[in-house]
């Protein structure tokens, strides 16, 4: 599907989402609509976003934004889904049952940003050593006088 067609299709399917143009289409979703929308994106035969190639988070100091980059191996169209999260108590549904690759990516985001993924099968620290819970290195206000080298 070309970008314009995809944009029309997505506006029909998700009236509450805002869609921005860019190199790829950017779709902003609310936390409440998130899981059902992701399931539609994966399962609707004419969309078929079966390959989640990047999942990450950005700390904007006032809020966090989850960023999902996805691709369809059948149609070769791409989409970026963004969800704003509260910075104090960030919570979002997991997508690891839709894309298995999300399991590891979500564990990484959990430890580096402190986002709590609801219904995740195995939410533990992945890269950081034991005892790092509660300190999230990739947040902008993280300070570690021992290990961090400031340039």
């Amino acid at each position, binding site marked *: 599907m070309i970008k314009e067609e995809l944009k029309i299709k997505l506006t029909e399917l998700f009236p509450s989402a805002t869609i921005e143009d860019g190199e790829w289409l950017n779709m902003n979703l609310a936390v409440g609509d998130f899981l059902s929308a992701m399931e539609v994106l994966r399962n609707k035969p004419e969309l078929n976003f079966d390959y989640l190639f990047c999942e990450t988070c950005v700390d904007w100091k006032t809020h966090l934004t989850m960023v999902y980059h996805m691709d369809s191996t059948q149609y070769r169209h791409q989409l970026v889904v963004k969800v704003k999260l509260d910075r104090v108590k960030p919570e979002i549904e997991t997508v690891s049952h839709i894309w298995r690759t999300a399991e590891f990516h979500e564990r990484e985001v959990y430890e580096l940003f402190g986002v709590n993924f609801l219904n995740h099968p195995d939410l533990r620290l992945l*890269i950081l050593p034991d005892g790092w819970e509660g300190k999230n290195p990739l947040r902008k206000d993280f300070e570690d006088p021992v290990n961090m080298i*400031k340039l």
Partner: protein
Amino acid sequence: MYRETEILKEVNAGQPDVFGDLVINVGPQHPATHGVLHLVITLNGETIKKVEPHLGYIHRSIEKMDESLSYRQFIYTTSRMDYLSSHINNHGCAMCVEKGLQIEVPPRAQVIRVLMDELTRIASHVLWWGAMAMDVGALTPFFLAFREREMINDIMEESCGARLTMNYMVPGGVMYDIHPNFQRKVKEFVDHFKKKIDEYDELVTNNVIFQNRTKGVGYISKEDAISYGMTGPAARGSGVQCDIRKLFPYEVYNKVQFNEILDNGCDSFARYVVRLKELRESLSIIEQLIDNIPEGDFQAKTKAVLKLPKGEFYTRIETARGEFGVYIVSEGGTTPYRIKFRSPGFSNLSALDHMARGSKIGDMVAMMGTLDLVIPDIDR
């Protein structure tokens, strides 16, 4: 809804549990993990029930470090991630900065970049071939592989000044022009390697012991490979079309002839065969370009201090291990606001548990070997 294919959820279901579960640790210091990877394997008898990777022994938080480095500096931290295809990592980062600044790369630099990328790919695959054969018990290929790799390293040393972490890419082109000997040496290498690659096939590919060790081992279906985000030769061994050079051509990849190698075997042997065939494709790309390096600048004129406009930029590039992604969030300053590296090894490793369940512990090394894991790439 995505469904897992038939795997042995409950190993030995219905049979009396005579042995009980045994948990063993492979690594962090183990010769077959090629780095500090720690696997906690739950066994029932000899059958694998679960594999849990424990990562982070070489985690340096490169993403956080890059937030305080300029757009010229951060490129070189990525050489330390996937050190076997450091050139291609640098290339991806340079491309992302160029995308943000809309810099046109001169044709000469484009061709040099592609040549260097393909040489790196050959060096990486050759080293993998030696290490893989060593993992399954054949020692000689390791020394043969280093003979060819040494030739490539010498070529790199002359042009880039370094043998492993080349740091040759800059936004807008390459750092120096190629060495006057470059073309002659590359041609010599191509002639040499063409004969040796047949030797590789005779020695390992057609070896019945090797085939028995790898055929039918580490099965992963096409659907699962996509769902686990596998890329590169590991996914192409399951028939997934995922070569970024073909799908989203960058630099001069749309002007050269090469095939995307696919295999529907889905097992370790298929992944092995894909890599060996890719070596020949890389050779063919080098042959097409080596006599056609255009004259001109090797670097576009850029400002001394680079400032990316406000926005988000993402580039995808095909490294020797799969798709490498660079995601830069810029606030308009001289350093990135947030940077994320999507490393191919990270996603490929996540499929290991699925692959290994239900197979024997002895096959573990053959499975891990064909995933071609580079640990700094996974830990970042």
